């Protein structure tokens, strides 16, 4: 037995004690360094969600309490009526025939919540479906069929190229040109942008999931899918001189009656890319009309129910899973960082940016 009282042990020599002490310190230092590396603190060049959001802030400024991107927006409420047609492909409860309440948000992809609606040619629709079983499905969709880039790093580089030059207040055209020259995968998006005009209504747009996902059916079979919301209203809205014409148009239309979209799920063929949001799938792929989204109310985002929702595209119910698209985890991580920053500002935590009075900020 070797656990005799310490007093009966042969004392360690001084050298031996120092060596053993150094060994212990070395072990602790090693664990600390491994932790610091994993944390990103000792890996300053790794792309993190914090660095992505910092770049968004560098481009647009900080508007306390607001989302770091798609900052200008409006809350909507309503429900989704499922017709059961997507049920053979996914066991998600939302696809069984019946009604699921939604809290959504329309937005303009700008970092400044006071920018005019014409500041970007894209609009977005985010939805949170609250399933009866307590699970949720959150999705953020954009009014274009392809994303400009395929990877988080390329998106970060795009943001860097878009950073306004302090001298002109605008992005440096040479940097943008260099970026697009180095990223041929942006061509489909650039072709779309040429034809795109900022729409004068949130209600007449289609909204695409962009990223692929996987539906899981009752047999455990997976089906690669993308989805989009296709509007019933197709009339051309007028826009006008009001910089906030989108909100005005939405309020007017909803006051007249519910606004509807069809949730169209596209099923991939084998071999269709599920990890590349810059590539559309061929137009002959099978579409399933899963049901109707009906929006019946709208409220300002500052007081509405969408304000405190993080539309993280990886909050998914049983029956819908992420694909291998590398943009999805990056969106999830960056949205979480944005959400923590704006909720910390709402909570007035020390060290967070504090809101000016609204009149001043405008």
């Amino acid at each position: 037995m070797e656990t005799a009282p310490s007093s009966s042990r042969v004392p360690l020599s001084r050298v031996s004690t120092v060596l053993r002490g150094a060994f212990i310190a070395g072990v602790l230092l090693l664990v600390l360094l491994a932790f610091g590396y994993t944390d990103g603190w000792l890996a300053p060049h790794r792309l993190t969600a914090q660095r992505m959001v910092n770049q968004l802030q560098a481009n647009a400024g900080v508007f306390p309490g607001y989302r770091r991107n798609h900052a200008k927006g409006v809350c909507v409420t309503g429900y989704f009526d499922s017709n059961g047609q997507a049920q053979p492909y996914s066991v998600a409860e939302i696809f069984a025939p019946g009604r699921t309440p939604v809290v959504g948000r329309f937005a303009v992809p700008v970092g400044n919540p006071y920018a005019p609606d014409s500041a970007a040619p894209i609009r977005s629709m985010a939805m949170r479906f609250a399933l009866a079983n307590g699970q949720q499905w959150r999705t953020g969709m954009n009014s274009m069929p392809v994303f400009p880039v395929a990877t988080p790093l390329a998106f970060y580089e795009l943001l860097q190229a878009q950073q306004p030059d302090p001298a002109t207040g605008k992005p440096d055209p040479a940097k943008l040109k260099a970026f697009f020259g180095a990223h041929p995968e942006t061509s489909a998006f650039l072709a779309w942008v040429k034809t795109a005009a900022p729409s004068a209504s949130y209600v007449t747009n289609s909204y695409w999931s962009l990223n692929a996902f996987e539906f899981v059916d009752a047999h455990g079979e997976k089906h690669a899918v993308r989805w989009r919301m296709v509007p019933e209203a197709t009339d051309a809205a007028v826009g006008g001189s009001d910089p906030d014409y989108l909100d005005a148009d939405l309020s007017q239309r909803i006051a007249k009656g519910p606004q509807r979209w069809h949730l169209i799920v596209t099923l991939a063929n084998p071999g269709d890319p599920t990890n590349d949001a810059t590539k559309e799938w061929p137009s002959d792929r099978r579409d399933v009309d899963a049901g109707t989204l009906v929006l019946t109310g709208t409220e300002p985002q500052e007081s509405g129910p969408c304000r405190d929702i993080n539309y993280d595209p990886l909050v998914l119910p049983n029956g819908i899973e992420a694909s291998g698209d590398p943009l999805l985890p990056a969106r999830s991580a960056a949205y979480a960082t944005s959400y923590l920053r704006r909720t910390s500002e709402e909570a007035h935590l020390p060290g967070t940016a504090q809101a000016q009075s609204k009149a001043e900020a405008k």
Partner: protein
Amino acid sequence: MKTSSTQFVLAARVLHWLIALLILTMLFIGVGMVASVSERHEWLISIHKPLGISILILAIIRLIVRLRNPPPPLPADLPPIQKLAAHASHWLLYFLMLVIPLVGWAMLSAGGYPVMLGHSLRLPPIFPVNAAAFAILRHTHAWLAMLLFLTFLAHLGAALYHGLIRRDGVLWSMIGNRTR
């Protein structure tokens, strides 16, 4: 043959090493997932939540084992300040093992997220939806985890000090019978 008074009971030793492994894994998963935008982000989060609840359950069992089986006494010749540090750090570890998972659970509840432990297993919310509370709980979760990491380092350093320098049987009381 050892007497129970120089060793932790078998259940305590098994729980100690199992929880030690899980907590160390958890600390690295926690900081790694927050600092990653890659595919790792998603699968680390999917491990983080069920692992956190597992640690909470194991910590409760361990607390019960601890209260029913008093640990072996510290060496009589240990300086009082070290005895105090030993007791304080152990109760701090118990506190953090129990509180950090609960704060994480409350944080997700306050943020309005469904608390999913897998594709379909969902825990009920334990806190009302409130954005300011989410922010406070989210920061608390991270700061307590940092405190847990530092306490773990101190614990590891102290264990090695007892094992390699003092050689007083404290480390072996948790490892088990050294002679067999």
